């Protein structure tokens, strides 16, 4: 179909009406251009929002005890109850779909008084007691040293991991903090690491960067809470339904703490998966909208090409008739018209694709493509897959645009050329 002769033939007819060809092609160019820009912007917002939840396990559930709301087994409603370490063991043992489970205690400091000190410098920060696996659910980047480990837990060592902001405020960003002693709520802890959260937008009990993290057992000792703690998080194992697992965990806890099996209020549960799924649906919705708008714009370009080519065919009645008289078969005429439409569309489409990608590359360079705080727009570029899809769409629309004119062209009989007007 695309030997040198056919291309010459096609090029001659396209080049004959340069202005018209360019104006016609502009519709397709614009359609693809807009599609690329929209897709890239969509990806930009997508990436931006995603960077805000990065590092947080999207299949995690958070559970915290609350007052009971039903009387049960002789207890009145409104009873306070606490989680303890044996609950964790029981859940791990009995509920199959739980992957990781991490108990947490926290001490908030809302009053604004300075409670954490290094030497004479002090600040107001929250504290959190965690297990080593906490950093696998709410992930952060270890900037210095290490995270809490099993030995810290087993020996209830008086060590801490500082959030990045705590470290910067108290010790200073240029100093190696490892081994330094800080005083938190009156007790000294040795700094074993500094952690920087991937994001501070989704977190448990305060932004990680503004928290002093202790081994849970150390915190239990320091605050005399025995083996009790405040709340826990768990992730769902692959292949299990989070809602089912939540129900099983709740049922088990109710049984262990003499809570009525129907008491929904006694355990407050937050499902991150549900929240993240909502994000996903939002992104999906935006994507669908973008494709609809983009394809719509492109379609009007295609209609433009089709329309102009119909006019062109009408004008070329005589020429096509002569070709038919000289022995051009209908299939050849169809091929030529389709190829003209294809060439025009593909050229315009590729130009639109390239310019669109180039502009968005410049925009990406300006807005930057490294995550920082409060980024809503990140790396607005289209992926290779989307570019391939766009190219396929260009080719298909070229063929689509050619169908009507080609049908019209083969209706022209050789005799139409001979007839003197």
């Amino acid at each position, binding site marked *: 179909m695309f030997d*040198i*002769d056919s291309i010459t033939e096609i090029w*001659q*007819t396209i080049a*004959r009406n340069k202005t018209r060809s360019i104006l016609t092609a502009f519709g397709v160019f614009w359609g693809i251009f807009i599609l690329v820009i929209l897709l890239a912007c969509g990806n930009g917002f997508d990436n931006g929002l995603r960077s805000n939840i990065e590092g947080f396990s999207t299949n995690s559930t958070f559970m915290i005890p609350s007052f009971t709301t039903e009387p049960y087994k002789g207890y009145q409603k409104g009873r306070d109850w606490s989680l303890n370490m044996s609950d964790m063991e029981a859940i791990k043992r009995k509920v199959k779909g739980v992957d990781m489970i991490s108990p947490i205690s926290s001490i908030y400091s809302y009053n604004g008084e300075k409670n954490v000190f290094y030497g004479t410098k002090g600040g107001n920060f929250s504290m959190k007691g965690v297990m080593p696996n906490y950093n696998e659910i709410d992930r952060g980047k270890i900037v210095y040293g290490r995270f809490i480990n099993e030995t810290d837990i087993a020996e209830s060592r008086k060590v801490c991991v500082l959030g990045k902001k705590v470290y910067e405020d108290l010790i200073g960003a240029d100093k190696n903090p490892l081994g330094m002693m800080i005083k938190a709520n009156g007790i000294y802890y040795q700094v074993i690491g500094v952690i920087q959260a991937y994001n501070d937008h989704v977190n448990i009990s305060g932004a990680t960067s503004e928290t002093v993290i202790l081994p849970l057992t150390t915190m239990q000792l320091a605050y005399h809470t025995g083996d009790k703690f405040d709340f826990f998080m768990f992730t769902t194992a692959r292949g299990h339904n989070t809602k089912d697992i939540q129900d099983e965990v709740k049922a088990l806890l109710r049984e262990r703490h003499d809570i009525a099996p129907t008491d929904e209020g006694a355990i407050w549960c937050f499902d991150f998966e549900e929240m993240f799924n909502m994000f996903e649906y939002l992104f999906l919705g935006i994507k669908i909208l973008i494709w609809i708008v983009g394809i719509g714009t492109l379609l009007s370009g295609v209609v433009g090409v089709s329309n102009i080519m119909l006019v062109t065919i009408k004008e070329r009645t*005589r*020429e096509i008739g*002569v*070709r*038919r*008289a*000289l*022995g*051009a*078969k*209908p*299939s*050849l005429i169809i091929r030529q018209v389709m190829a003209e439409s294809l060439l025009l569309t593909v050229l315009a489409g590729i130009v639109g694709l390239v310019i669109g990608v180039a502009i968005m590359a410049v925009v990406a360079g300006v807005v930057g493509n490294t995550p920082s705080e409060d980024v809503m727009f990140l790396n607005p570029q289209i992926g290779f897959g989307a570019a391939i899809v766009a190219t396929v769409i260009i080719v298909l629309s070229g063929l689509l645009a050619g169908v009507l004119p080609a049908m019209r062209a*083969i209706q022209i*009989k*050789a*005799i139409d*050329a*001979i007839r*003197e007007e």
Partner: protein
Amino acid sequence: MIKLENINKTYFGAQPLHVLKGINLEVGDGELVSIMGASGSGKSTLLNILGILDNYDEGDYYLAGKLVKNLSENQAAEFRNKLIGFIFQSFNLIPFKTALENVALPLFYQGVNRKKRNTMAMEYLERFGLKDWADHYPNELSGGQKQRVSIARALVTSPKIILADEPTGALDSKTSAEVMQILRDVNASGITMVIVTHERGIANLTKKIVYLKDGVIESISENDPDKMDFTKEIK
């Protein structure tokens, strides 16, 4: 070469128009025939049927021994391409192609490769003294040159017959004479030729004149063009 048996053709419009009412005609190999008739006599329709540009309702048309009837578009295109060369009153050259490209076009439809095509086209242009004009576009050529290009285009596929529709209709008398001389030379080389005209002078340059009137053949007369002083008659 051509055999028409009881050809009937009606145009179905608001009012059916019976254009050809039983045409019987035979044209032998190498003959030079003209078809004459007033406008509306059906001569153009007859030419269209001969050129497989139009179909007919009744009868049989044999071209080079083959029955031409109810052909598909593809078959018709192939027959036209291989057997027939057309020469039109208004030349019908493709305006955005050079003289050479125009002549080479029928060969393109035969699938002849580019190099061979252009060599053959150049040979025919040379034969009609247009070698130096090969790269010119039709609007850069005179009427006579254009018609010579279109004759070259008609001949380049070595067809069995040449059909010419008022070949001198758009030319002045001097050029007409030149073009007619070329057509006679072509015929002398052995190619059957049918010329449709309403000019007596042109018809007198052919060996057989078919008179058409109201869709029937009124008469057929033999003619000796060499005895005619065509320079006078062609007026």
